[in-house]
C-alpha cells in the first residue's frame, strides 16, 4: 500500500464539506468503482479507499477525530486534547521519537495484514462495505477482474512469458499461450479481487488485443499481407521469399498473376493450440520502377509495341 491519501482528497470534497456533499461524492464514486461494475484491477483498491474514507467522514464523531489526529486517530485515546497532541507530535519529530512512528502507519489499515494490530476488524469491514450497521457476514469470495493485454502479432504467434503491470500497479508474470486470438480471454485463476475474511479471490481475465501491424493484418487465425511483385515476376511466375511471423517462407507465384490475387500458404497463419493453424494470405500487388533506366525503357517500349494485351478490353 502506498502512502495513504487524505480522506477528503479520496472523496474529492473540501474539508468543510457538509454531510450531504460527502454522501453524494461517496455514492458517485462507489458506483463507478464497485468491483462488479468496474472490472479494472485498480478499481477494487479505489473502492475500498473510498468506502473507508466515507466510513470515517460520514460519522461526525469519527470525522472530528480524523480532522484532529489524521490517520492515526484510532490509536489516540478518546480523552486526548487535539492541541496537546499536535504539540506532542511536533516535539517527537524533533527529539528522540517518543510519539507514534509515522513509518509503521501505512500498514495499519492494510487489508489482510490485520493480525496483531489494534485496529478493530469489525470496524474495518463495516466501513469497507459502506454500511454503517454492524452486520457480521460470512466470507465473500472476491470479484473477477479484467484487464486488456496488447500484444504484437509476433508475441501472439510465439507466446511465451511476459511481465505486465496492471492498472492498480500490481506486477504479474504471465505465460501467454502460442496462438492467442484477438479478443480471447486468458484466465489467471485466483489473481482477481480479494475475498473478504480469507475467502477465495476472484479470477483475473486478460483480454488479448493484437496491435495493428505494419505488414500483417489479422483476421481470426488467418494472416494477410501484401506481396509486391515486379511485372515480369507476375507475368512469368517466380518463387519469392516472404517474411511470416514463423520465419521466412518460399512462395510460388504462378505465371500470369495479376494484382489482387491472393496466394495462400496453408498453415502459416497463427498457430492454434486446439486444432489446425490459420493460413497466411499474400495479396499480389504489381509494382513498377518509379524511374526507368534507359535499358528498361527500351525493353518496355518494345514490349508495348509487340503485345496485344489490353487489360481494359470488354469481353
Amino acid at each position, binding site marked *: 500500500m502506498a502512502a495513504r491519501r487524505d480522506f477528503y482528497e479520496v472523496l474529492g470534497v473540501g474539508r468543510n464539506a457538509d454531510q450531504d456533499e460527502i454522501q453524494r461524492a461517496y455514492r458517485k464514486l462507489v458506483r463507478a468503482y464497485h468491483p*462488479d*461494475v468496474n472490472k479494472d484491477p485498480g478499481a477494487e483498491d479505489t473502492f475500498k479507499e473510498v468506502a473507508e474514507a466515507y466510513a470515517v467522514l460520514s460519522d461526525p464523531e469519527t470525522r472530528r477525530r480524523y480532522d484532529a489526529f489524521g490517520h492515526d486517530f484510532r490509536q489516540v485515546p478518546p480523552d486526548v486534547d487535539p492541541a496537546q497532541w499536535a504539540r506532542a507530535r511536533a516535539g517527537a519529530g524533533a527529539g528522540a521519537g517518543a510519539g507514534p512512528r509515522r513509518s509503521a502507519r501505512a500498514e495499519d489499515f492494510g487489508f489482510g495484514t490485520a493480525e496483531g494490530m489494534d485496529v478493530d476488524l469489525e470496524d474495518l469491514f463495516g466501513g469497507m462495505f*459502506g*454500511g454503517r450497521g454492524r452486520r457480521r457476514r*460470512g466470507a465473500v469470495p*472476491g470479484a473477477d477482474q479484467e484487464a486488456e493485454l496488447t500484444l504484437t502479432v509476433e508475441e501472439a504467434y510465439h507466446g511465451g512469458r511476459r511481465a505486465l503491470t496492471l492498472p492498480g500497479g500490481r506486477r504479474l508474470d504471465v505465460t501467454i499461450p502460442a496462438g492467442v486470438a484477438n*479478443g480471447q480471454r486468458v484466465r489467471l485463476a485466483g489473481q482477481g479481487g480479494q475475498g473478504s475474511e480469507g475467502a477465495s479471490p*476472484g479470477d483475473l481475465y486478460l483480454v488479448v488485443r493484437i496491435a495493428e501491424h505494419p505488414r500483417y493484418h489479422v483476421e481470426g487465425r488467418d494472416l494477410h499481407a501484401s506481396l509486391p511483385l515486379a511485372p515480369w515476376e507476375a507475368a512469368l511466375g517466380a518463387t519469392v521469399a516472404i517474411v511470416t511471423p514463423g520465419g521466412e517462407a518460399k512462395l510460388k507465384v504462378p505465371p500470369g498473376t495479376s494484382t489482387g490475387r491472393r496466394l495462400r500458404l496453408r498453415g502459416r497463419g497463427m498457430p492454434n493450440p486446439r486444432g489446425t493453424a490459420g493460413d497466411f494470405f499474400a495479396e499480389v500487388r504489381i509494382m513498377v520502377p518509379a524511374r526507368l533506366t534507359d535499358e528498361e525503357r527500351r525493353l518496355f517500349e518494345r514490349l508495348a509495341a509487340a503485345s496485344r494485351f489490353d487489360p481494359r478490353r470488354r469481353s
Partner: protein
Amino acid sequence: MTYALVRPIRLDLDSYARATGLHPEAVRRLVVLGLLEPVSDARGELCFSPSQVAAAARIQRLHDGLSINYAAIGLVIDLLDRIEKLEATLRNLSPRH
C-alpha cells in the same frame, strides 16, 4: 475429490450456505427472487452448482457496496451481463474492416 471430473459436483443447501457465508433462509429468499439458479436433485431438494458460489458473492458485494435491494439486484446483474456480452462482441468486431 478424485471423482470431480466424472461426476458433476452439486452443493446441497447447507454446504452452499456455508460456502457463501449466507444463512440457508437467505439462500431460499434469493432463489425466490430469481437471483440464484438452483438445480433440484432426485429428492427435490435445492442444490447448487459450484459456479453459483461466485454468483452469490457478486450479489452480496452489490448489496453491501451499493446498498441495492435484492429485488433490484436482479436487474443490475442482467444489465451487467448484457453489457459484458456486448463489449465482448464489440471487441471481436472492431479489428475487422
